[in-house]
């Protein structure tokens, strides 16, 4: 696949976005990993339109697996985006996690909003972060800034001018 050449600023702007999102994912994962009493149970059980699905996830048999997967997922996506390794997979993983968070509490009219620090209608920060990951997914930014520079076989096409 051929990618358009990016200008310096375009490339670094996208990398900045990738780093910020990675930072956010990693920090959320680490905070949860170091807090033994953290659980996603409350968030899942208070889900609105897809309640049966999320209540199933929050059930006694699944909840500890779900919590662990969530923490591992957050940290893995964070590392991927922050240090620039397997970024496309990181983007996909991140989008999937965000989709789950979004669907548990979609800011649709007439639905309970759950705990939230702002005001949202259809669009919330989860959705925006998801869209940002979708943008990052479109560009091979690891060679601009990222560990995959070390392994890149073909750096010419994707480096910035």
């Amino acid at each position, binding site marked *: 696949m051929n990618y358009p050449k990016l200008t310096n600023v375009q490339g670094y702007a996208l990398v900045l976005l990738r780093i910020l999102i990675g930072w956010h994912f990693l920090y959320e994962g680490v905070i949860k990993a170091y807090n033994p009493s953290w659980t996603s149970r409350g968030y899942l059980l208070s889900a609105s339109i897809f309640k049966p699905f999320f209540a199933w996830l929050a059930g006694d048999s699944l909840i500890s697996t779900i919590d662990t997967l969530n923490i591992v997922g957050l940290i893995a996506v964070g590392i991927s985006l922050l240090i620039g390794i397997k970024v496309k997979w990181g983007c996909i993983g991140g989008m999937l996690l965000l989709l789950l968070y979004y669907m548990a509490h979609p800011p649709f009219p007439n639905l309970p909003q759950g705990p939230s620090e702002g005001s949202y209608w259809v669009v919330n920060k989860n959705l925006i972060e998801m869209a940002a990951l979708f943008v990052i997914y479109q560009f091979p930014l690891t060679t601009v800034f990222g560990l995959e520079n070390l392994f890149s076989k073909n*750096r010419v096409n994707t480096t910035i001018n």
Partner: protein
Amino acid sequence: MANDNNFGKWNRRDLLKALGGIPLFGAVWYSGASLAGSAKREKQFLLETLNIKASPPPTSGPMSGKPLRLGIIGFGIRGEQLCRAMGFASTGWLKDMNEALEKNPKDTRLADFKAQENLNIKLAAICDVFDERAEDAIASFNNGDNKIKRFRTHTELINSGEVDAIVIATPDHWHAPMAIEALNAGIHVYVEKPMTHNISETYTLRDAVLKNPKAVFAVGHQHRQTQSFLTAQDVINKNILGHISLVQTNTNRNDDNGAWQYDIHEKASPKTIDWDLFLGNAPKEPFNLEHFFRWRKWWAYGSGLSGDLMTHDFDRINCILKMGIPNSVSASGGIYTHRDGRNVPDVMHVNMEFPDFSTGGSQKAGKEKGMTFVYSATLGNQFDRGTLLMGHDGSMELGNRITVYADPRSTKYAELIKEERIEAGVPIYQYDPAVSGTDAVTSATAKYFANKGLLWTYRDGKRVDSTFLHLREWLSCIRNGGTPSCSIKEGFEEAISAHMGGLAYKLGRRIDWDPAAQKIIALPGEDLDAVLLANK
């Protein structure tokens, strides 16, 4: 740039581009880990400083042995609930629950009832002055396993030789006469609150309990079984709150049922109701359906807010603080929300003074002593004002959950507040039996979920209600020995305090208690019982 992976040819810029994320990763990880670690240490520090022992009340003893034979007197709203808590649901209720379940498969009431532990009893006798109710009990509980018999009067039931224990769920004016008769016949008694309807019978009942130590006596304050009760006691024992000067309790209701406007049965008539038996020692009155079904609205049979509802709050606080009977009580209020002919108030405030009471303090000796217990009620608004114990060092919100806040001007926590290890407005302790463990500093999000009851965990896979636990405790004392948590001492204190509240309201003056003589002080020539029972 070169198209290869040869490290030797990499310049510093390339390496920065490749490896620059790693220090960022380290910084984020370190920051998250150290923040989480310090939050954990702070929480641990607070929990260790407070050292509150969070524990649910112990379970009562085994229900094994020969089945106990029980009689129920009064099969109205509460009587039916009590039977259900003992494992006997009426046919009507079961039908309603089956219908509710068909409409909503998530309705767990029927499943909860079926999952309830078998208390190993036979419901052997029923006494109700209304034929329909007595027949309903017989139709519901007469089956292969259980034989139930109707008795016209409580005396016949008590002396039938067919019951070991009775549950009294009648109007207030019948509580003491029935309980006294049963105790003197050696029958165990569980009586609904308030324990008595007037002052003199409170003493007679106490004598009857003391004279018949083999008969186990319990008063129906099921709040004593609340999961948070022992933990709240430990908060007080450890003097977490400092000297408590004010306790605030209340009732807030805003519906007809809550205002005692109960349904009038379509088949009720002088033919189906033994009116004279209902009246008992109450003033003679022509047959009156309002009086029969909505008896809580008249002093002659009920005791309004002070007897029906304040007693719960008084007993709840008394089981934690053990403050006993107040030195004096004043009250005010009126009939403001339901002007329908009732004579008990529907808005009422009772202030109980305990000038010598102390929970211990953190300031110099002698500075603090004395407490006011405030009960404030309205049947015209249901905003939940919460139960609050307010001390010099902290406040405790008391419900199914316990939340403790440090007071910004506390002596005990002054250093910690100065060091910003305790923040005003953030609970320093929270106990919620529905979530595992306890919490010191709770995040807004966790609180949001807990308040919605979403983090409830089941005890042994079952969710049990406090009425069941309270009856079970009484039955266990009958079988295994021991004294129920709400027995005669607690019942006596509850009844006297409630009567003082009723008297203060009716007389419009402060009512004093003489602790040495163990008497409510009357003016010369004043008959306090006559005042209390007067239908005005």
